[in-house]
């Protein structure tokens, strides 16, 4: 785990309202595994750090993908090249990959696409065939970048690719990795309890000490999303007890 002051080195738009930010943070980039996250601090800015999946990690750069949903994300998107954030990471336990599966689908809804470029690279390096399944409300919201051997698009309104939930567009594969809104992941769990899912929780510390990021387990009790998670076997989570973390905002 490292905590460098990391300068913004690139910002690019990948969909309507969706951006990739790249920070120079060589030790973190070198250590990051797919499904892990970084915890960013803006100064001046809100009190707590903000967790983001590692989107890509190459050439000393850590990329994250985000949309402005509140003060923290808006502040990050207002950064200009050279501006620094304190970048803590890599954190959490990432996706498990097994060559024996032969093929995998990386299933994402909206922002849930965030961890998958790094996962796709690692999966292909492990000899897996990668299908990129990405859904959003409408074509303009689909993340334009993808990685893997083939891609399946899905939109709620049918404006591009499969018409409907990305969950219904997943082909036959050896294993499924999923990320997206918690209710979508609950649907994944019902269909594929063996899938690996990356969940969102509110976090205090990101390092295992505050117990704020409780993930209710099917077997009872709570796990820490920042330490045992954020990636879980879908069937291991008590989904009705996991909040969906959609804040209501009057002005967003």
């Amino acid at each position: 785990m490292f905590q460098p002051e990391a300068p913004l080195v690139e910002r690019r738009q990948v969909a309507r309202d969706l951006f990739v930010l790249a920070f120079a943070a060589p030790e973190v980039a070198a250590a990051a595994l797919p499904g892990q996250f970084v915890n960013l601090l803006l100064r001046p800015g809100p009190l707590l750090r903000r967790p983001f999946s590692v989107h890509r990690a190459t050439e000393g750069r850590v990329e994250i993908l985000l949309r402005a949903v509140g003060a923290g994300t808006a502040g990050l998107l207002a950064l200009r090249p050279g501006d620094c954030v304190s970048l803590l990471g890599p954190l959490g336990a990432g996706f498990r990959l097994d060559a024996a599966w032969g093929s995998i689908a990386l299933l994402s809804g909206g922002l849930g696409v965030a961890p998958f470029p790094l996962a796709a690279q690692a999966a292909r390096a492990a000899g897996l065939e990668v299908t990129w399944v990405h859904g959003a409300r409408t074509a303009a919201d689909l993340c334009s970048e993808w990685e893997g051997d083939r891609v399946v698009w899905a939109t709620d309104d049918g404006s591009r690719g499969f018409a409907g939930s990305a969950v219904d567009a997943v082909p036959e594969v050896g294993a499924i990795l999923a990320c997206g809104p918690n209710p979508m992941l609950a649907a994944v769990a019902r269909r594929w309890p063996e899938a690996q899912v990356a969940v969102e929780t509110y976090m205090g510390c990101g390092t295992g000490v505050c117990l704020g990021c409780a993930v209710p387990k099917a077997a009872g009790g709570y796990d820490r999303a920042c330490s045992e998670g954020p990636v879980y076997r879908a069937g291991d989570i008590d989904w009705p007890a996991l909040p969906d973390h959609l804040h209501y905002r009057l002005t967003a």
Partner: protein
Amino acid sequence: MTDVGVVLGSLALRGPVLAASGTFGYGTEVPLLERRALGGMVSKGIFLRPRAGTAPPRIVETPSGMLNAIGLQGPGVEALIRDYAPAWAGWEFPVLVNLNGESVEEYGELAARLDGVPGVAGFEVNISCPNVDQGGMYFGNDPVAAARVTAAVRRRTRLPVWVKLTPMVTDIGVIARAVEAEGADALCAVNTFVGMSIDLRTRRPRLANRTGGLSGPAVRPLAVHLANQAAGAVRIPVVGIGGIATAEDALEFLVAGCAAVQVGTATFIDGGAIAAVHDGIAAYLEREGIASLEKLPRCLPRD
């Protein structure tokens, strides 16, 4: 180098900055912290038996603060003795165990069970717990209940007993004196402030537990005042807690009459916070020509 050591009753600390309960786990999961700066550590709150804790969401960020409702999730005292105390025994700073109970007896039993366990240097009694025998009223809100808890722990151990006060009282001095009279070695002021935040989408509290404890810089001016009141009310040392993120913040508590401080929420944000606070206190004393922390002029309510 300026002497920043402090003596709190029978406990000598190499520095005045401790890690606060519930913000540092059991001390085993904080890789960034510069341990050299730690004067001591208070464990996450422990009960006799394991507790699952409250349902999520457990955390809400607020302006310059955060609400938490963790529900004292933890493994119970036996697991603590087995899994953590042995490591503490080898550390170069004392570890105090934060004690929690649903009845006066539970507090006493916890102290008895932990007394003499290698690695356990003392107790911080958390009286901000609901008193199940009295309809869930907090022990810490009532001088009689607070005194009884203190006495119950005191009777069962010769280790240092610190009592952590709740801020949610009309007169903290009354509670402080009641606890001192039962033999507490030090007071910790203060625990979190009860707060609430509403989700406008569901029109329900954001925390599953409805209310939570407010910590962080937002509460600092309130905590400095309460620590100052407590320090003015008793002769035993007071440990200041609430919203400390920098050396200046800590020095406010020390000048207000505290012998030491604890840092909580700030460690979530900066793994180097405790070291920065420790080093900044030493630098301040040096710059001001104050030979040791004990010589720092204090400003008690009566001054």
